[in-house]
């Protein structure tokens, strides 16, 4: 018996069947389902529950849908910014105090200077920076986001944005995968499996990184709080910082559309396909489960991952900063060498060095950068509060508002982290597309920061 025989036989039998036999069968299937359901379900009384529909009419209306979405995003980010602000400074103070005590204890034991330095100025400080910068915003953002997800709001977002995706030649469900990207881009890439068409799925994969994941949010929040909102205080400051972060997120979403548009008109040509999307009923979120998934699963997971990279990164920076090289340290020499290129992008050599060291998990760019500044002898004390960070960077290292804004843009647009690149490779089974994801994002990041830097200098703003 061979496959050929079976298929031949099937073809013969098929020809003998009256046309449309299967359609008939499917139709009777549906008819049967209808009859059975009608027999089994009874509407008791005239309890009419159209509350869901009434809410949907508002949140998915062409007029109010987008503003509501924007407002919700704004609220979530404002909560994160203002909440994180309070916790961040406090936790930094505590963590760095512990570091000082540890160092003093090691010195008391008369351990060699390089052991003390390597452990407390290198590894420990790397960990402390990551925890104090990343943990507070994540612990607020993840639960808030999960509440919206559990409520059933995400499909409404997809519904609202569908026309924009269709215009960009992409799939409307890309809104869902993009929303997943806010949590983690690797998860966002995996979630593109809900998209049927391979073409549209690739677009969704390649553009997912333009939404800042939770690893990158803290960077954006810190820069917005410390630089953009500098000079304001209290409530106004938190609103301005939140507005800056929302602005950056919108720029990212804008790039998703732009890049989808460009891709679907060049390498991934095609029309957007139609799909049906069910709007599930609104459900009351289960608070205990939300706290569990968002704190234990998501926050601690992301934090643990960041710490695993931060510890060796801290160690590497300490070593680089303590290897002498022509009257200065190796770290400083590399930073100086990178400086001209950094200048072109409105950044500086230290930022680029930090970025290179942090490639495995580029969400730790800011902590790494702070470590380079401190360890290369460029900063004498460890700044603990936002205000101290600002005055040191602006006063000591020539930072401007442009530096901060371009660093925000750079961390929004630059290449995916190692995990995400690996996930893209696994999902597409193609080295070419994995490489493309890096080229597209990094190219965009260089181009955009170069343009903003040049423009700012041309206009004499800096």
């Amino acid at each position, binding site marked *: *018996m*061979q*496959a050929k025989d*079976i*298929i031949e*036989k*099937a073809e013969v*039998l*098929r020809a*003998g*069947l*009256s046309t449309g*036999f*299967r359609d*008939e*069968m499917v139709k*009777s*299937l549906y008819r*049967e*389902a*209808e*009859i*059975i*359901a*009608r*027999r*089994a*379900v*009874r*509407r*008791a*009384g*005239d*309890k009419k*529950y159209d509350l869901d529909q009434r809410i949907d009419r508002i949140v998915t209306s062409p007029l109010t849908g987008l503003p509501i979405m924007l407002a919700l995003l704004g609220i979530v980010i404002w909560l994160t910014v203002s909440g994180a602000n309070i916790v961040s400074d406090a936790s930094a103070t505590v963590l760095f105090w512990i570091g000082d005590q540890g160092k003093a204890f090691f010195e008391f034991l008369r351990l060699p200077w390089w052991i003390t330095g390597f452990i407390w100025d290198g590894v420990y400080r790397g960990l402390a920076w990551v925890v104090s910068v990343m943990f507070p915003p994540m612990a607020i953002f993840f639960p808030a986001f999960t509440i919206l*997800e*559990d*409520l*059933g709001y*995400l*499909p409404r977002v997809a519904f609202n944005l569908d026309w924009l995706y269709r215009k960009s030649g992409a799939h409307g469900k890309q809104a*869902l995968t993009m929303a997943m990207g806010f949590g983690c881009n690797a998860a966002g890439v*995996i*979630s593109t*499996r*809900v*998209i*049927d068409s391979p073409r549209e799925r690739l677009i969704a994969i390649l553009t997912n990184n333009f939404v800042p994941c939770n690893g990158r949010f803290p960077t954006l929040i810190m820069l917005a709080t410390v630089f953009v909102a500098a000079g304001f205080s209290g409530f106004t400051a938190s609103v301005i910082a939140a507005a800056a972060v929302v602005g950056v997120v919108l720029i990212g979403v804008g790039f998703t559309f732009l890049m989808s548009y460009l891709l679907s008109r060049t390498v991934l040509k095609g029309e957007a396909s139609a799909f049906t999307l*069910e709007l*599930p*009923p*609104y459900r009351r979120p289960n608070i*205990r*489960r939300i706290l*569990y*998934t968002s704190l*234990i*699963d*998501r926050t601690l*997971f992301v934090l643990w991952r960041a710490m695993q990279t931060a510890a060796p990164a801290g160690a590497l920076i300490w070593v680089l900063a303590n290897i002498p090289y022509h009257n200065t340290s190796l770290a400083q020499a590399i930073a100086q060498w990178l400086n001209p290129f950094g200048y072109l992008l409105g950044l500086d050599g230290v930022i680029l060095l930090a970025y290179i060291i942090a490639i495995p998990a580029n969400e730790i760019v800011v902590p790494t950068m702070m470590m380079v500044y401190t360890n290369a002898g460029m900063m004498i004390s460890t700044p603990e509060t936002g205000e101290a960070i600002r005055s040191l960077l602006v006063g000591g290292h020539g930072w401007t508002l442009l530096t901060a804004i371009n660093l925000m843009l750079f961390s929004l647009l630059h290449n995916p982290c190692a995990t995400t690149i690996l996930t893209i490779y696994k999902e597409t089974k193609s080295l070419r597309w994995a490489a493309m994801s890096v080229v597209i994002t990094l190219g965009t990041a260089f181009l955009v920061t170069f343009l903003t830097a040049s423009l700012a200098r041309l206009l004499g703003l800096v």
Partner: protein
Amino acid sequence: MTEKPVISTPAEPCAGCPAYAQLEQMGIKMDGFERVVALAGNPNTGKSTLFNSLTGLKQHVGNWPGKTVTRAEGGYKFNGVRYKLVDLPGTYSLLSASQDEEVARDFLLFGNPDATIVVTDATALERNLNLVLQVMEITDRVIVAVNLMDEARRKGLEVDTRSLSRDLGVPAIPITARTGEGLSLLLQTVADVIEGRILTKPLRVNGTPEFQKAIEQLVPMIEEFVPGIPNARWVAIRLLDGDARVRQVLESGKLSELIASQRREEKAYSARMAVEGRL
């Protein structure tokens, strides 16, 4: 509804609750399992919630269709028997195109589960029954879990599961996966169906006699070509339907490969899912 909650919340076993004497959440401990149970259903009907309640795992659950894109596996023990539970991505039909729906279809077809629970949404039963009928084309051992009974009650809907069971020819159990209502009855029914204490007689929409005859001729040929194939009937139907993909799988000899891969345990993967909980 007259149905009383049998289990409180699975997270907090009450000592006096008989169901808890029987149900033991096994998490990712799946070694030496004796039975395989698949969880199928339309998207967003609460399969993952049910999966979590039974296994004690923390598979991410989202209120949007398409949250589960790969299959997750976990274990539970009921009345001393170890079961492996496979949570499949939601699907509207088995004639599917997208990758997540294919995962569900391939497992039901070639994974040969001992029983399949089709989780349905009590508030949208008609649409959900289409899938139930299609799953019943593939396998006899089907249990219909009518989930979201609490939502149905709130909407003023009454679902007569007895009428449903009678019409479908397989047991239909009302549950609310979120609160644990009806779960012990569901598990007992699953056990009874597997052990043959409950004999199912699934309703089959058979089509014309000539179609039946055509199937009867093809099935033995397919069974001879792929020994041990669990669903020759379905493959025959698809071939008669002119399904190019099924034809191609048959021609390239990938059919046996597909069957073998579906039987392989995905334990390592499940363990990672449980630890990372990323999806």
